[in-house]
């Protein structure tokens, strides 16, 4: 499916280059890589600065959440748990590794742990936004 770039802030040269890039290889690779490892989608596209900042932000938010003894959702018992788990899964391998090593609190017992839980969920959501941005760069929708 092609999208019109009329009105977007791209020059004809950028559009042509982006279209050329979009015809090579597996188009969803930056999306999947960016989801699994924060910033990896941008690194694949050689956007080193943007990738580093995105990785630092997502990783920083995730680690802050763990330091605040935030909870990692492991099951879906009600609708809020399902939403929390969906947010946590946005962290990709960070979530898997943290679960494997038993990081994160089981129960929220202090006020800061509640903030930590939100930090971890939002880190996942931000990572999904970053991965979609990498996909948009890959397809030429964004330059």
């Amino acid at each position, binding site marked *: 499916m092609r999208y019109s770039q009329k009105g977007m802030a791209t020059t004809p040269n950028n559009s042509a280059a982006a279209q050329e890039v979009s015809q090579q290889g597996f188009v969803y690779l930056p999306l999947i890589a960016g989801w699994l490892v924060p910033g990896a989608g941008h690194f694949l596209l050689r956007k080193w600065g943007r990738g580093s900042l*995105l990785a*630092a*932000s*997502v990783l*920083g938010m995730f680690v802050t959440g763990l330091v*605040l003894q935030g909870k990692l959702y492991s099951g879906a018992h009600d609708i809020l748990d399902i939403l929390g788990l969906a947010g946590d899964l946005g962290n990709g391998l960070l979530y898997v590794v943290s679960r494997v090593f038993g990081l994160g609190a089981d129960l929220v017992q202090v006020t800061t742990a509640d*903030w930590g839980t939100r930090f971890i969920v939002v880190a996942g959501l*931000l990572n999904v936004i970053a991965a979609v*941005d990498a996909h948009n760069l890959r397809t030429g929708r964004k330059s």
Partner: protein
Amino acid sequence: MTHFPAVLLFALFASVVFGITQRETPRQMIRYGIYCFVLFVGSAIALSWVMFFIAR
């Protein structure tokens, strides 16, 4: 960590991601990132004062 540093960290990380993903050029990214940061922190402070007066 108290509430305010947590707000600052949250605003910083979210603003960086919003700035990079929602704008095209580096200049626009920085401007939008700062705009988001100010809105995050400003709204948190404003809502805190609202809740302070409601609780009295």
